[in-house]
């Protein structure tokens, strides 16, 4: 999507943001910390350092006006140290000489008190790192006015409905260095917009994440959200039970996130807390899942300096891999897959850029006709031809826009409870016939995606910003044979 009306606006260069020529700041900082370790802890000490500078700006709106509008510049220095067979990590944002010295000293002190670490996997050896895609400077240096303009467009397109959401830009510049001589640098930029329109207690949502702010069309997103909201008005309550469903990309994103956190996490897999069984056909043949960080603008290395790359987790229904950092990868005998992350020792390595690959030749909806068309049935319920094509095949089921507050009841089977949000419609004979009140569900995600369960997959994936910063999930609409709704809005 493009924001045609806003391309000509001026952009303000924000102090604290760094061009290519300034990248040496992070590289130098990382190198200085490695050198400090060498001087104070001796040449036998193994150190790895990541320096990340970030500029995050987020313009938030509710009740159709901007009510929170923030920007922050941050620096994070992370040091992991392995000395005399013991390991510790420390971090901070003080980058003056005293601050860096204090970081090294307290991390050394922690390492001295840590227990022996016989499973220390060692440092990443010098290796080439992909450069990553070019950073869109217009996104990296976007002004508050540019974000506000997109909000203005969203609100105007909501056409009198209350609107709420945000427009966000993020710029990252990072460097890695370790005492084994490996170093890497990178930059990334991202823009996201997520908004709802509200009509008489019913909400409609539109959400998109891109490498370029120019690809976010506030007006288009606002129009979709408004149409959805109007279509969701006057819902009826249906009885709980098993329903065939078409999940829109926002709801699919929740599936991907939970599968990533609890299933394709190498530490959880080693602990036998994951459902994943590599080599086993655990999913429908239509399912191919790839963790693909380089599909979008990103820092091209992980916290351990391992180059990031695509990792196929499921190919045509068969589980193929789980994500590893250096420690879990050494334990599994596979090596790191580039998923070293903060807190990974405790929570495990988590793939956080998961793509459900779309169907190559899924049917495309027609513009006209009662079933399979965007305009069929409740006006606005189906927002795009991709979803319409899947809805067309449903004799009786539910079209679900979004999931909310999903929590895991049993990690081993990945049984999850949560609620629908931002629109549910009853589909009969391929046409959404009326809005439905929100449901609570309790469902095993891998079971719902199991062999024979996927009845259709869309062709147009939509990248969804994660509700927590720093990751994204991308998939097309998805038609499943059964979803277990365990309660209605009234209990």
């Amino acid at each position, binding site marked *: 999507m493009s924001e045609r009306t806003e391309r000509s606006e001026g952009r303000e260069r*924000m*102090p*604290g943001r760094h061009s290519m020529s300034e990248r040496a700041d992070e590289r130098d900082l990382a190198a200085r910390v490695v050198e400090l370790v060498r001087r104070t802890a001796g040449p036998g000490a193994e150190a790895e350092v990541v320096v990340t500078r970030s500029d995050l700006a987020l313009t*938030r*709106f*509710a*009740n*159709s*006006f*901007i*009510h*929170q*509008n*923030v*920007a*922050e*510049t*941050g620096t994070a220095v992370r040091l992991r140290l392995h000395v005399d067979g013991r390991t*510790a990590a*420390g*971090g*901070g*944002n*003080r980058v003056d000489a005293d601050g860096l010295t204090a970081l090294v000293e*307290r991390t050394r*002190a922690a390492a001295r*008190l840590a227990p022996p670490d016989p499973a220390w996997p060692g440092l990443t050896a010098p290796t080439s790192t992909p450069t990553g895609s070019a950073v869109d400077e217009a996104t990296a240096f976007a002004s*508050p*006015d540019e974000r506000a303009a997109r*909000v*203005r467009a969203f*609100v105007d397109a909501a056409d009198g409905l*209350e609107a*709420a*959401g945000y427009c966000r830009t993020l710029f990252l510049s990072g460097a890695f260095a370790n005492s084994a001589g490996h170093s890497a640098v990178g930059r990334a930029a991202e823009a996201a917009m*997520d*908004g709802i329109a509200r009509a008489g207690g019913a*909400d409609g949502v539109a959400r998109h994440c891109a490498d370029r702010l120019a690809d976010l069309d506030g007006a288009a997103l606002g129009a979709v959200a408004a149409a959805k909201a109007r279509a969701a008005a006057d819902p009826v309550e249906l009885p709980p039970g098993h329903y065939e469903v078409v999940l829109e990309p926002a709801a699919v994103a929740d599936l991907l996130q939970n599968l990533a956190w609890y299933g394709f996490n190498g530490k959880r897999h080693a602990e*036998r*807390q994951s459902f994943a069984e590599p080599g086993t056909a655990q999913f429908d043949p239509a399912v191919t899942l790839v963790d693909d960080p380089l599909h979008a603008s990103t820092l091209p290395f992980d916290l351990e300096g391992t180059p990031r790359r695509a990792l196929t987790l499921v190919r045509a229904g068969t589980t193929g891999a789980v994500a590893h950092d250096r420690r879990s990868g050494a334990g599994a005998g596979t090596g790191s897959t580039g998923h070293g992350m903060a*807190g990974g*020792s405790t929570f495990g390595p988590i793939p956080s850029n998961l793509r459900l690959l779309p169907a190559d030749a899924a049917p495309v909806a027609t513009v006209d006709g009662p079933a399979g068309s965007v305009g069929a049935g409740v006006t606005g319920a189906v927002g795009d031809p991709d979803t319409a094509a899947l809805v067309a095949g449903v004799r009786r089921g539910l079209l679900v826009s979004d999931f*909310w*507050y999903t*929590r*895991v009841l*049993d990690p*081993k*089977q990945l049984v999850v*409870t949560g*609620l629908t*949000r931002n629109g549910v419609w009853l589909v009969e004979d391929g046409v959404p016939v009326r809005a439905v009140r929100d449901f*609570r569900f*309790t469902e*095993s995600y891998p*079971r719902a995606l199991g062999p024979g369960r996927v009845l259709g997959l869309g062709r147009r994936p939509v990248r969804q910003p994660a509700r927590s910063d720093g990751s994204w999930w991308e998939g097309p609409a998805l038609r499943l044979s059964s979803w277990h709704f*365990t309660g209605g*809005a*009234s*209990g």
Partner: protein
Amino acid sequence: MGFDAATAAVQAALDAGARYADARVMHRRYESMSARNGDIEELAQHESIGLGVRALVGSGWGFHAVPELSDAAARDAGRRAAAIAAASARVPGPPVDLVPVEAAVASWASECAVDPLGVPLSDKGDLLVGATATMREHGADLAEGLYQIWDTTKWFVSSEGHRIDQHIRECGGGISATSIGDGETQRRSYPSYRGQYGTTGWELVTALDLAAHAARVAEESRELLTAPECPSGETDLILGGEQLALQIHESVGHAIELDRILGWEAAFAGTSWLDLARLGSLRYGSELMNVTIDPTIPGALGSFGFDDEGSPAVRRDAVREGRWVGVLAGRDSAAVAGLDHGGSVRADGWARLPMVRMTNVGLEPGPHTLDEIIAATDDGVLMDINRSWSIDDKRLNFQFGCEVGWEVRKGRRGRMLRNPTYTGIGPVFWRSMDMLSSETVAWGTPNCGKGQPGQIGHTGHPAAPARFRGVRVGVRA
């Protein structure tokens, strides 16, 4: 230094056109250690300092944060906050007022007998290593222990004359045992999953006596693998205090946040089923239900001297004898709602905008004991220690899972039950509460997420065991 930078930022925002500005300088040290199966798994230490300034230009807010405290950086941050506020006028809202608050010049510090950062790492490590080793010896497949420490100093200055510094020390910890069976896992924790926390010193962790509970939780986690499944249906439900604390957090605390009620969180955290027009008259729960908003409780995790816009800590009622009477508010949201006080605004660090957050939201003690509640129950289920939580965006429809359940028959606690869950609608559930214990504990929740960009809040929830009639239990896939 903190006051100087904050003052410079505020002045710069005013000079740039702001009609109100405030700034927070925060310095936070964080330490956590986790152990697994008798070994230290991770030791993390982090230190962060910076400044965040908030400016009000016309009816628009702007906020800018920087990790530097030099005069130049502070002034630049103030100017940028004003510029961002001016950009907000592109999509303007109604006029913004702030309810009055005395411009305090004050210092405040939380009580702390034993500085948690001063306790030797080796002692803290020995505690976790010992407890997790014991759990392994008693059958746990995964034995985990954790403590966390936050030591925060902050300096607050406003254009109205506030000048407040606070030093808040928080810590806590806990242990968990997981047993892995064929196709499922079972977990038991003490005193709750990821622990109990407060604005206090290491004495809190010492008093928990983690080692003394290690063998029990391990054995119970293994026992759960073969325990009968929690039955499905409607029954009387007795909740332990820790689970009731989360029930309060999710179905009362968030519901009474004024920003949610006003629609300011509609797109993300959600709204609230509560309607301001019924404040003072709406029946929230039974007459046993008395909920307070009280940031003055010594040692509770949501305690402070002043909130992050300079309002002093004051105890207020949220629900009195079952009737909804109060909200969590900030100075601007209170003005919109026609209320006369804020007092519940906090920021997760220097880089985040202050927003409405829970402080200590909890139940006043009831007249009973847990033993009396069990003795008075003919047929029901006792559940304790949260395992999963989910609630809708209006804070009405919830489903919680607990680590453990026990059958209650004819006034006695019976066999252990696995996979206990319960579900309901907030006000219906609270109106069914007919027995409440006096055995109150101020449970600490250090992981309350809200806001965009995301913020993690630390909240407290005084709670005691209670009984609820006719609750649906045993929901499963």
